[in-house]
Each structure stands twice: as structure tokens, then as C-alpha cells.
């Protein structure tokens, strides 16, 4: 909470009532960021001077009745893959530690034009290629609910910055769950929009055909306000009664940690109580879709970062291993993966004729301890990376909008994933905002 405001809307109301200034919001955000940095390591670069300059400009505009919309004067952060002229864009890597760009990312341009106030660039898993955010070059990023646990990733710093109340929103990228996993582990809202809905111009890629840009925020409504600025979202009615919720019979309900299972079924009961219809569905083989996605990502990431592989010692061991694996995938297999992808996209569209949304847990587990590679679920051990991504990666392959909403269970958050139809991002956020607002019962 910054200046007593929980949401962007509250802060905007106070700004326009002159109860607080943008400079005061920025100063309080900066103080919180500096105080939290030794504990959580959420930021790679803190842009204090720029923030105060942008905040002063927002105050001057408001004083002259120049209203740039809901993000004017609002403190936020960018994952350190968004290009920002004059500020390093490291990608969380040693290789780009001092990299400066001669251009701004499209998202940063739009946010700046809307009067938002950049507080800094957040930390991430090296090159956004992993989900722990245990970064060998900039240090581990830590979960605000328990600093001994991971925040998820790869947009770990963005998840922490929002969940710890350091900023009102933060931008992330999602190639295989990198917005939704930290949202679930840190306890905030995270949106992976429909593929292509938000411009990736000026954002360092990872998987060319899998990358998505989206916000992490405290509430669904705040995420929608950010999408209005960066993607031209229009407000739509958030009806709940009669909406058809697809509940997968298999895969997404298998091998769940008990608290995740409990939170998921509570969410189902909640929306049913509000008048939505729960419809059991059979979904097209999500494990196959994940396999296709992993093969595509291995190929695309290795093609992207191959020019730097002569500097092996400058990569963390996990990222180096993935890059070397990707070089072993043949072009024929990559093309076949893209052919299979279309088949599964078509099969998924067929089930979406019968439901409006699909509910799944975001992750199978809650945030594990830093450095832990395996988790035990239902008496079996599973790799932390797979337990974190097996429910989210399919929707990067399918390109569908997917939103993670947090619930606190045993002191740690768990995420509910709501998947919409392609291009129905506004409907998805409107429904989720109505169903899971503090006033929805």
C-alpha cells in the first residue's frame, strides 16, 4: 500500500482530489523499494531521478487540468527486458550487464505518454529462461511471503514489487508461464494476454512465437487499467450469472499440493455460488501441448542466443544447459512442432464452443524454497520447474489469454488460472473482476 492506497484507482482519485501528489507517491514508493531491496532483491536498477522527474511532470499536468488517464502519476516498474533509452537493459544476464539501447520499448513509450512513473527495472531469471529467479549474476530474488522461498519467474522481481506493495503495477513477459507463475507464488494478479495483443516491440525476446507481454497488478481492475493504456482495452460488462466454466476432468487436477487443491475447489464453489455453471470438460492432451511448447522454445531460444555461446562461462549453468539442448533439435522437428501446434489449437477451439472460460490451478505447488530442485507431491518427486509450469505452458502454445488470480491459503499464496477465448481478453478481465472483487461475496 502506497500513501494509503491499495489500488491504482484509489491513488488516481487521491491525485485528482489533490490529497496526494505524484511526487509524494514516487517518494513513498522509492522509500519502500530501498527498504525492501536488501530483503527481496526485486530490482536491478532503481530509477530514482527519472521517477521524480516524471512525477513532477505528472503533477504539473494535473495542476493544469491535463488528464492523461488512470495511470498518470502512478508508480510502476518494468521487467529488465523492456528497452529504456538511457537506462541499462540487462535481461538479468552478465552478457548484457551494461547493455544500453538507443530506443524505448513500445510499452514504455505508451506508459510514459500516459503519465505513469517508472521506479526502476525489476530482476528476473537470466534471459527470462527459467522460473526460479535464482539469478547467478544479480542474486536470488526472494518471495515477500517468505524470503527463503522463490518468487517464481521469470518475472520474479515484478511479482515481488507488486505483491510487496513497492509499486502499483509492473510489466512482465510470459513465454512459458513467466507472468502467471510469479503472480501465483507472490500473490498478485498476472495477465498473459492473447498472443500478439500487446506489442513486443523493444522487448528482448526469448521464444519468438511464444512470447507475450502483460501486467502484474494488485487487482484485476488494475490490470485492466494497464491494458487500456498498452493495448487499447475497452470496458465491457462483467456478467457472472449463466457463464459456463469449463473444469478439466484430467491433467489439471492431478498431482496437486493439498493447499492448491483446496484453494482451487473453493474458487469453483465461489463462482458457482455467484450463478456460474460448472461444466466438466475433456481437454486436448495438455501434456502433448507442453511437449510441443518445450521443443519450440528450446529451438527459438537457442537460435536467439547462439551468437553469445562462445562465452559459455558468462551463462548460468541452467540456462547454458537449455541453450545447448536447443542446438540439438533439428529443423524438421521444429517445423513439425509448429504443425502439431496448429492441430491442438484447433482441437482446443472446439471445446471452447461449449464453455466461456476454463479454470485450472496456475501451478501445482506453492512457492518452494530457494535452491530446491524437486518437490514431493502425492508420494512422488517432481522437478520444481515442471511442477511450476505444467499448467501454464499450454496456453503459450495455444496463444489464449490466461489470468492468474491469487488466494492466500496457509500463509503462502496459490493461484487460480482462468483461460479465455482468443481475443476475448476484455471479457476475461471483466468476468474475473466481477467474480473475484472484494465485494463479490
Amino acid at each position, binding site marked *: 500500500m502506497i500513501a494509503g492506497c491499495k489500488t491504482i484507482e484509489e491513488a488516481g482519485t487521491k491525485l485528482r482530489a489533490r490529497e496526494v501528489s505524484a511526487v509524494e507517491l514516487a517518494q513513498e514508493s522509492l522509500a519502500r523499494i530501498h527498504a525492501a531491496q536488501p530483503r527481496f532483491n526485486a530490482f536491478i536498477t532503481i530509477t530514482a531521478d527519472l521517477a521524480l522527474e516524471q512525477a513532477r511532470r505528472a503533477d504539473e499536468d494535473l495542476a493544469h487540468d491535463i488528464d492523461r488517464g488512470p495511470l498518470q502519476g502512478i508508480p510502476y516498474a518494468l521487467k529488465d527486458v523492456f528497452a529504456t533509452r538511457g537506462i541499462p537493459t540487462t535481461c538479468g544476464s552478465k552478457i548484457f550487464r551494461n547493455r544500453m539501447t538507443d530506443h524505448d520499448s513500445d510499452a514504455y513509450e505508451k506508459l510514459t505518454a500516459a503519465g505513469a512513473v517508472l521506479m526502476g527495472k525489476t530482476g528476473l531469471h537470466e534471459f527470462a529462461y527459467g522460473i526460479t529467479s535464482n539469478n547467478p549474476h544479480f542474486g536470488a530474488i526472494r518471495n515477500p511471503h517468505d524470503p527463503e522461498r522463490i518468487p517464481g519467474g521469470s518475472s520474479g522481481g515484478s511479482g515481488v514489487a507488486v505483491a510487496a506493495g513497492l509499486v502499483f503495477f509492473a510489466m512482465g513477459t510470459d513465454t512459458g508461464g513467466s507472468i502467471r507463475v510469479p503472480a501465483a507464488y507472490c500473490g498478485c494478479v498476472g495477465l498473459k494476454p492473447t*498472443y*500478439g495483443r500487446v*506489442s*513486443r*516491440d523493444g522487448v528482448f525476446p526469448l521464444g*519468438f*512465437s511464444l512470447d507475450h507481454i502483460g501486467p502484474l497488478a494488485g487487482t484485476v481492475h488494475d490490470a485492466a487499467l494497464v491494458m487500456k493504456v498498452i493495448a487499447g482495452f475497452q470496458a465491457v460488462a462483467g456478467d457472472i450469472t449463466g457463464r459456463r466454466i469449463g473444469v478439466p476432468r484430467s491433467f489439471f487436477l492431478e*498431482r496437486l499440493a493439498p493447499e492448491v487443491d483446496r484453494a482451487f475447489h473453493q474458487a469453483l464453489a465461489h463462482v458457482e455460488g455467484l450463478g456460474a455453471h460448472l461444466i466438466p470438460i475433456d481437454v486436448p492432451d495438455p501434456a*502433448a501441448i507442453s*511437449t*510441443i511448447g*518445450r*521443443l519450440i522454445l*528450446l529451438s527459438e531460444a537457442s537460435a536467439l542466443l547462439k551468437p553469445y555461446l562462445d562465452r559459455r562461462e558468462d551463462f548460468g549453468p541452467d540456462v547454458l544447459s537449455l541453450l545447448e*539442448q*536447443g542446438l*540439438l*533439435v533439428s529443423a524438421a*522437428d521444429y*517445423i*513439425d*512442432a*509448429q*504443425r*502439431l*501446434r*496448429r*492441430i491442438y*489449437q484447433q482441437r482446443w477451439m472446439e471445446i471452447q464452443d461449449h464453455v466461456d472460460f476454463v479454470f485450472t490451478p496456475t501451478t501445482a505447488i506453492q512457492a518452494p524454497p530457494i535452491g530446491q530442485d524437486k518437490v514431493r507431491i502425492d*508420494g*512422488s*518427486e*517432481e*522437478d520444481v*520447474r*515442471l511442477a511450476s509450469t505444467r499448467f501454464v505452458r499450454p496456453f503459450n502454445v495455444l*496463444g489464449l489469454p490466461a489470468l492468474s488470480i491469487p488466494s492466500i491459503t496457509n500463509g503462502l499464496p496459490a493461484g487460480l488460472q482462468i483461460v479465455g477465448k482468443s481475443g476475448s481478453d476484455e471479457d476475461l478481465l471483466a468476468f474475473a473482476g466481477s467474480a473475484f472483487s472484494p465485494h463479490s461475496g
Partner: protein
Amino acid sequence: MPTIEPAATVEALLTEFHKLTPQLSEHDFPAVDFHA
């Protein structure tokens, strides 16, 4: 105790992947979209 191992190496991943490819026909074109 059963252990669920990830397809941690590319060989294991390709083995899983090649179980899917027989469903492809000459009518199946790639879904490549490098939207920026």
C-alpha cells in the same frame, strides 16, 4: 517410491515428441506467427 522425472534431456523430450508426429499429414501446415 515412484519418481516423476522431467524430460530433462533433449533426448527424452524428443522421444515424447516423436510419439506425437505420426498424427501429422501433408495437410498440416505450421502455425508459425512471429507477431511483434
